């Protein structure tokens, strides 16, 4: 059975072998270059991450995340524009509500909502973004892998 118990045990044993696999979805307006996005990830994470570009964070669907978890990804990261900066005016607000709901549903189902990371990027502050992403990866490290092998 798939449980989070093994992950707690792994955490307790201070297993440092785990490198999370994440799927990153970024809006093209906050960061047009997927390579640049990948470079904001720690190296070992970037090696196994997939990065997808969306026309707007509002294009992000819950299915992308849910399916990603089913495929064995440990985290899904969404990068969009800061509120007020959306090219389509309210796309990011819609995405924000949608992802918030997704996180609540995951939590009800026993899946750590922090696996879905949502960050609204300020165009001018790459450093802050990078630091935020580090924090997100750190939280994934703490939670552990999504899937236990059956």
């Amino acid at each position, binding site marked *: *059975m*798939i*449980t*989070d*118990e093994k992950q*707690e045990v792994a955490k307790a044993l201070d297993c440092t072998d785990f490198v999370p696999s994440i799927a990153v979805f970024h809006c093209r307006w906050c960061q047009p270059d997927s390579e640049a996005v990948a470079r904001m990830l720690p190296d070992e994470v970037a090696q196994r991450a997939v990065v997808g570009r969306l026309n707007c964070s*509002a294009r992000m669907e*819950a*299915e992308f995340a*849910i*399916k990603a*978890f*089913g495929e064995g990804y440990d985290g899904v990261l969404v990068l969009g524009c800061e509120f007020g900066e959306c090219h389509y*005016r*309210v*796309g990011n*607000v*819609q995405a924000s*509500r*949608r992802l*918030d*709901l*997704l996180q*609540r*549903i*995951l*939590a*009800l*189902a*026993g*899946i*750590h909502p922090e696996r879905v990371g949502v960050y609204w990027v300020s165009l001018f502050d790459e450093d802050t973004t990078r630091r935020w992403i580090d924090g997100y990866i750190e939280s994934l490290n703490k939670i552990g892998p999504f899937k236990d092998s059956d």
Partner: protein
Amino acid sequence: MPDEELDSREEQARRISGDLLASDKVDGVLALLEIRDHVVPNLFTSPDELTGLSVSGRYPVAGVAERLLRKWETGKIAVIARGCDERHLIEMAKKKSVDLDRIRIVGLACTVDEAKQCHCVRPYTHEVEIGRSVGNVDYLDHAALSKLLNMDMAERRKFWTEIFDRCIKCYGCRNVCPLCNCEDCRLEEARWVRVGEIPPEYPSFHLIRAFHMADKCVGCFACEKACPMGIPIGRLHQLIKEELKSAYDYEAGRDIEEMSPLLAEGLLGDLS
């Protein structure tokens, strides 16, 4: 005296249906027909059929109404609707799946027993024409819901993973739900849910549906009744509804003007 109440509800229903048919205001009345101890959805088109009209038992008739109106381009039908049926119709009207101008809702109030069976909180329609409303009640299974909420993450994960593992992909939950009427259902797309697997792919099958239903579910629990494997899917939907209520004070099926908080339309209105 429940029996007496039931009788007069039947009589009321038949009288109103008879009047509607006679006055030619509607082409048919969608309600339940009692045959041989069973009740089935039926479109009554002539007054002599009305002796079989029953108000006991529940089928999600809103789904039938939507399919019939989609098939027949013109025409108007009356629907004897319980509270949940009306909420279904309101939700569907929001999506423009039904044109409420083509439906004459005949409101049926549920009895206390009926409300209890369905864990209902609002067993009546906006306008009650059959029976007497028992008002707002709370027959939700709070013990069961609390049990789920009191579990920690690991327990919840174990609970839902094991119970979803029973699923045999009958699509019963989706098929009975009147709000699940997309022509291209995501659950049927191999891209999102691998085909031919029992149990269906986890978490895709159940959580994609739970997400889609979040702002549409009116809490009728028909999905749970249709599940052969006893998966308490209605409870999960109920908990999700409570999240939307606490975050946005949103309730599906309450008011046709009440837009889902997930839609951009509502947000644009705010910003302009």
